[in-house]
């Protein structure tokens, strides 16, 4: 699009032949072709006639002159076509017209002055090409020609004058005028359309530029070599660079980028350097401004495809410092609130427990049943607070992750045993735990691994009807020799349960998700379990996938990177018994 506009504006700048109009040869490709062929045919015909005259030994000045007219027209067209030099074309046209007038004056229209002249005018009108003024100019020419003919008839300069032929010559002139006029009308119509289009595209361009410059988001355009070609005023404000200082410079060399931990991002890993196949979203990047300060941003790169080819990237840069702070404040609030909740939860727990124990006097069976209800509700609240704390700490990046040597098979058995004790005693579930016989101990965070297993096994047991099957499988995959795949522990938890409806499968890992088919019969459940699992896996660098068919069962596959589990020092406030145990162990060392 900008290319077209450039072309059009070039045309607008070009001085135009005869007349004050701004657009000259705005003919379409077909028209140009037709006119070119027609012009050259005319010239060939003119030449042939001149040559015939010479060849048939009737060497006359008329024949020679006719060749001269043809030659000037060739030069004329070539001059305009090749050099785009209007002055040369103008002079050549004037020369050809003068030559023509001389021929007519001498020959009185001449032997061949009849319909043959018709061929001269389309090229002329083509060269005039443009506005109605061209037609008036042509009419002026006609009147001049007629005047000359009349003169040559009234005062014969030549013995060749033939009045009859002059009549047909005049008729041909009128025919040419008519053709020219019609043609020019159509040209003018095209022209006004182009004007309208130009105006519209100009307006659109202005609108877009106003929109772009008033956007709150920085926009930087780079070409396919990574050079900055354009940026809006927000980008100037955000980056504190002026656009003229940036345009033409390499984005990645001029504007340093850092990851969320403050490590510089190398050119190879630069989101804009790698030609994005689709839209690329990079969150929590830090960009360095001209003055050396940095800010947190979200960078979205969209490839600029022109007729199927990658021509560059349009990137939007959004300063997310404020929303990041707000998000952090919100999460910190949740952490604090959860902590404050823990104290009353403890009080309820302990006091109810003492009541149950008869520490405050003996209870009736109805009373102890109700106290039990209070206790189990309290337990749910306690679980919910714990889960919220984990989520909040993951969001804050403060959940401590400390890989230690563990046997995942043993951990799975331990967790499964605890979970089996929580299901209703009369609900029979066939639970199988399979672990690789040669399963090595690997470095994984114990709490994270337990939490993941806990939620997956708990869900499997809970959402499988009585007499169903649940299996937990632990598989160790060593790193491939080419290091293409890293060392992994896969945990596969499958059940013959109710399954997750297809329509809801895309929401499984969202906060507070509970599928419709289980909400109907089970009201207990926070909907945080799988969200916790997913968040934890994102946090430690693992993956989770699942496959589910309603009323057939669900299989979750978790992949834990053995080497890659990220260590987080965790200055957070969340503690669980496992963390405490781990800390106790290390403190004694």
């Amino acid at each position, binding site marked *: 699009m900008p290319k077209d506009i450039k072309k059009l504006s070039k045309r607008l700048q070009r001085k135009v032949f005869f007349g004050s109009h701004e657009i000259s040869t705005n003919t379409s490709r077909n028209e140009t072709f037709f006119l070119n062929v027609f012009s050259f045919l005319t010239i060939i015909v003119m030449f042939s006639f001149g040559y015939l005259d010479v060849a048939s030994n009737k060497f006359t000045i008329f024949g020679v002159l006719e060749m001269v007219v043809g030659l000037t027209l060739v030069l004329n067209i070539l001059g305009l076509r090749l050099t785009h030099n209007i002055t040369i074309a103008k002079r050549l046209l004037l020369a050809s017209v003068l030559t023509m007038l001389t021929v007519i004056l001498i020959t009185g229209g001449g032997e061949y002055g009849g319909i043959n002249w018709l061929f001269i005018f389309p090229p002329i009108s083509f060269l005039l090409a443009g506005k109605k003024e061209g037609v008036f100019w042509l009419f002026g020419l006609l009147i001049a020609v007629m005047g000359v003919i009349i003169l040559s008839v009234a005062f014969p300069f030549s013995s060749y004058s033939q009045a009859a032929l002059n009549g047909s010559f005049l008729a041909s002139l009128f025919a040419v005028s008519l053709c020219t006029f019609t043609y020019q009308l159509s040209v003018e119509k095209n022209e006004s359309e182009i004007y309208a289009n130009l105006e519209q595209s100009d307006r659109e361009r202005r609108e877009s530029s106003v929109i772009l410059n008033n956007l709150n988001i920085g926009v930087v355009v780079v070409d396919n070599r990574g050079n900055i070609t354009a940026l809006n005023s927000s980008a100037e404000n955000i980056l504190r660079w002026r656009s003229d200082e940036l345009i033409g410079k390499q984005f990645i060399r001029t504007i340093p980028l850092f990851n969320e931990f403050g490590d510089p991002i190398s050119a190879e890993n630069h989101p804009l350097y790698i030609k994005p196949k689709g839209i690329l979203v990079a969150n929590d990047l830090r960009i360095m401004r001209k003055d050396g300060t940095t800010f947190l941003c979200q960078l979205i790169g969209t490839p600029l495809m022109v007729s199927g080819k990658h021509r560059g990237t349009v990137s939007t840069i959004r300063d997310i410092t404020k929303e990041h702070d707000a998000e952090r404040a919100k999460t910190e609030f949740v952490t604090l609130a959860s902590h404050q909740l823990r104290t009353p939860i403890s009080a309820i727990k302990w006091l109810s427990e003492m009541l149950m124990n008869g520490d405050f006097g003996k209870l009736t069976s109805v009373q102890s049943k109700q106290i039990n209800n209070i206790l189990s509700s309290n337990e749910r609240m306690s679980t919910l*607070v714990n889960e919220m704390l984990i989520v909040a700490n993951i969001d804050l990046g403060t959940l401590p992750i400390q890989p230690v040597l563990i046997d995942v098979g043993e951990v799975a058995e331990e967790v499964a045993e605890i979970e089996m004790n929580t299901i209703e005693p009369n609900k029979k579930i066939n639970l199988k735990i399979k672990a690789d016989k040669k399963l090595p101990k690997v470095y994984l965070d114990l709490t994270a691994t337990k939490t993941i297993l806990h939620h997956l096994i708990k869900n499997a047991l809970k959402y499988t009807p009585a007499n169903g099957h649940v299996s937990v499988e632990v598989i160790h995959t060593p790193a491939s020799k080419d290091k293409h795949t890293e060392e992994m522990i896969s945990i596969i938890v499958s059940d013959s349960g109710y399954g997750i409806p297809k329509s809801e499968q895309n929401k499984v890992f969202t906060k507070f998700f509970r599928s419709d088919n289980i909400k109907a019969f089970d009201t207990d459940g926070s909907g945080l379990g799988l969200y916790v699992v997913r968040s934890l896996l994102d946090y430690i660098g693992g993956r989770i996938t699942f496959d589910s068919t309603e009323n057939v069962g669900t299989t979750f596959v978790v992949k834990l990177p053995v080497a890659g589990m990220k260590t987080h020092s965790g200055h957070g406030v969340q503690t669980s018994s496992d963390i405490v145990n781990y800390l106790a162990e290390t403190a004694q060392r």
Partner: protein
Amino acid sequence: MVKALKPTIMVIEDETLLLQAISKKLTLAGFDVLSCSSGKQALDYLKNIERLPSIIWLDYYLKDMNGLDVLNDIKKQKEWSKIPVFVVSNSASPSKVHAMLALGVKKYILKAEFRLDQIIEVIEEFTSEEKTKPDRRKTND
């Protein structure tokens, strides 16, 4: 087998409701209980008391100071530093927990995850182990 002298346990907990519950439960379990609702009160007690407690039950989050400060003060005094401390709390970051364990806390117990009688079991287990060892408790004449 009943000892003439009940073991004394000092409970430092700023939540009155919890303090009452803990005291009641510990009394029922056969302990002499010294209830303190602030860190300062606990340190004052230790300074003026005739017979030092045999065990300290410490909450981390206290209104006037935190458990780590109390612990530091306790460990500064040679006599006090011998008293086994159990931290029962909800609100300590892992680094604080680690610091307290390094200072010689016998056990850190997460309040919300344990029942009272479980905690008392843990303490009783510890005291019965201690009984087999020579009595290190200080007795003032």
